[in-house]
């Protein structure tokens, strides 16, 4: 059995782990100061400069941004009494290494104690990140937080998960359908609540007419690249399909323009994390998609990084066949509205270009889709937000005391 209690440092087994269950005042100065000190430490470290997703995390934690979050929280809790729930147990995903920090800090900021389960698979970014956090935590100033956090690395041992679950007032399962299903067989306390994040599928919607007139296409291309190629295109919010809205002719022209530009950009980037095995996986995926549905596959002989599979209906999307690393479903439609009635609980982020926010809100209200959690401009798909998969995380980590 592999169990490594990374924080607190002097504890070696679970029986000795004592986590404080009394909560702190939401957004109290000590909490804001801790988060912004971690941010400073990350920004100072040259290692992290090469990792844009960690830099994004550090920016999210800056004092000015935390103040904004605080303001939001105060607005939400006007005339209400909101307190932390106690101990929150976060089960982090193993491959998106920043999620556990967002999840933890949002819960911390509203005053909770936190237990974090992190994969036992060594990953240098995660290890360095934990190292930095620990060094801030060791400052005397933050003594009050020391028995309010545990970071534990282990594999899939259900007995450990059970023990930690029994300590928790909230359990957060950062996804994967199978993981959620399995962890749910392990009970939490009757008084506890649970947040779970299932497998999700995200996509971009582009207004073909608008893109033909775009002056700064290069900027859009770069944003689209980040939205789709980071995390190997396998984060829940990664763009994995492009929907073209317009007439047949316009859609074709727009595609030509867009893919030509993206091809050039990707070839310049040479995303090195895409390996030969991914190329074979994409070939298997394409063939499987061809067997499952009547698709059209466009090959660009000179660019192994981009694969395009045209479908006729969003229902033909099979998320399980999608292997990421630059594989795009493509769909052409006349009107945005045509798409919405087909959305399901599986659909998470819609990244748009060429539509206005008002227009989008109206479309959503008028068609009342079953799914879609976030609608963001292209370039912001992977930005973390305290609203996630339809939950307000701040709110979910709090209990409201009703005072009449």
């Amino acid at each position, binding site marked *: 059995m592999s169990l490594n209690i990374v924080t607190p440092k002097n504890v070696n087994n679970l029986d000795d782990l004592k986590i404080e269950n009394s909560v702190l005042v939401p957004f109290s100065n000590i909490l804001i100061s801790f988060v912004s000190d971690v941010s400073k430490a990350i920004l100072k470290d040259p290692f992290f400069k090469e990792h844009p997703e960690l830099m994004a995390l550090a920016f999210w934690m800056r004092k000015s941004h935390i103040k904004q979050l605080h303001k939001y929280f105060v607005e939400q809790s006007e005339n209400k009494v909101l307190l932390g729930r106690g101990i929150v147990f976060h089960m982090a995903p193993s491959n998106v290494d920043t999620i556990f920090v967002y999840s933890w800090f949002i819960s911390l900021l509203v005053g909770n104690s936190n237990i974090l389960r992190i994969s036992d698979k060594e990953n240098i970014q995660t290890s360095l990140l934990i190292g930095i956090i620990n060094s801030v935590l060791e400052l005397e100033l933050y003594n009050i937080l020391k028995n309010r956090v545990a970071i534990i690395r282990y594999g899939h041992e259900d007995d450990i998960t059970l023990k930690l679950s029994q300590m928790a007032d909230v359990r957060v399962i950062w996804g994967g359908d199978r993981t959620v299903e399995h962890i749910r067989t392990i009970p939490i306390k009757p008084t506890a609540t649970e947040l779970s994040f299932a497998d999700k599928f995200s996509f971009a919607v582009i207004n073909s007419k608008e893109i033909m007139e775009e002056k700064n296409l290069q900027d859009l291309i770069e944003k689209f690249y980040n939205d789709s190629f980071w995390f190997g295109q396998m984060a829940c919010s990664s763009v994995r399909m492009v929907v073209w809205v317009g007439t047949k002719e316009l859609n074709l022209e727009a595609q030509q323009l867009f893919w030509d530009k993206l091809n050039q950009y990707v070839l310049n980037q040479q995303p090195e994390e895409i390996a030969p*095995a991914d190329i074979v996986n994409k070939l298997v995926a394409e063939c499987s998609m061809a067997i499952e549905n009547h698709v059209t596959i466009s090959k660009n002989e000179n660019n192994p990084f981009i694969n395009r599979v045209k479908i006729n209906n969003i229902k033909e999307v099979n998320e399980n066949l999608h292997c990421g690393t630059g594989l795009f479903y493509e769909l052409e439609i006349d009107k945005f509205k045509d798409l919405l009635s087909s959305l399901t609980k599986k659909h998470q982020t819609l990244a748009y270009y060429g539509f206005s926010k008002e227009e989008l809100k109206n479309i959503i209200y008028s068609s009342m889709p079953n799914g879609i959690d976030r609608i963001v401009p292209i370039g912001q798909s992977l930005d973390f937000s305290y609203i996630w998969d339809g939950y307000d995380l701040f709110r979910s980590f709090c209990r409201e005391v009703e005072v009449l």
Partner: protein
Amino acid sequence: MNLEEYLQILPYELCKEEKHEFLLKELNYLTTKHSAKCTKYKDILEAYNLSDIKYKEISEFLPLPVRLFKNYELKSCKNEEVIKTLTSSGTTSQQVSKIFLDKETSTLQTKALVKIMQSFLGKQRLPMLIIDTKSILKNRKMFSARGAGILGLSNFGRKHTYALDDNMEIDFDIIEKFLEENKGQKIFIFGFTFMIWQYFYTKLKEKKKKLDFSNAILIHSGGWKKLIDQAVDNNTFKSSLKEQTGINNIHDFYGMVEQVGSIFVECEEGHLHAPIFADIIVRDPMTMKINKFGVEGIIEVLSIMPRSYPGHILLTEDLGTILGEDDCQCGRKGKYFKVKGRLPKAEIRGCSDTHAFDSKGKK
């Protein structure tokens, strides 16, 4: 030349021009045939907009990724025409390939295998020692690949003797009796590479036992993955076995259940050879463009044997290097190459796993 006539030719006797011409004709025919008979294959060709094309180069055909046979039943004959279903071993992955053979394909594969094996073993059936346990044939669960392999190769020997007992221990009594009975004769030994190393060579060495197999020819297969993990390469394998048993004549072969029959056997120079029924192409694993000889890449195998399933042109997940064509020192014609091993697995990515809870997770 029709197929019947072509099969009369010795397996390593054709120069590239003649071979290419015949393979091209057959592969074009097979592509059309499979497309007409196998809807899934047709769907794939249509999706890539590659229907009804007559190719001029064997490298132009779309290879199917071999893993597709694990996920889908691909068949270009009627159900009632299937006389045999082959499955892959499935030791490293849960899912197994299913390959459907009709009478024609099965016969052709046997013919090809006979031609190839005879060129190494001679036409006489030799006394055969199998480095495995006889119970492998009885245990239906273990049967698939190892059992089928042993049965297939057993056709080329007589007096079949199994070297390991039910507990996978060397049965010295049986081996010594076998050696005694066949003294002075050429012997055929067959086994799976890893089994030979683990249960035969290693045990002999531990027990400091030497055997005299200087008259034997050893043919083995089954992949190098587990041996490479133990830092055993082909040269080490050969020299170690020679030291313990005196075997001089050792031939590995490369082949897969998806193209049974047209196997690639190692020659005296240590090179794997494409027989006239099959060919090999090595591609750049990123761009899929054809690599020059001498440059390592991903292996594509072509065979004119598969008639009842669209497995005539396959992209493997193995890495290898073509060393030359028609000019191997051993005298055999055709492309000759070496295999390095499996393509490294893709990283697991994404947020959709706290880690995919498979059977491993449930302890």
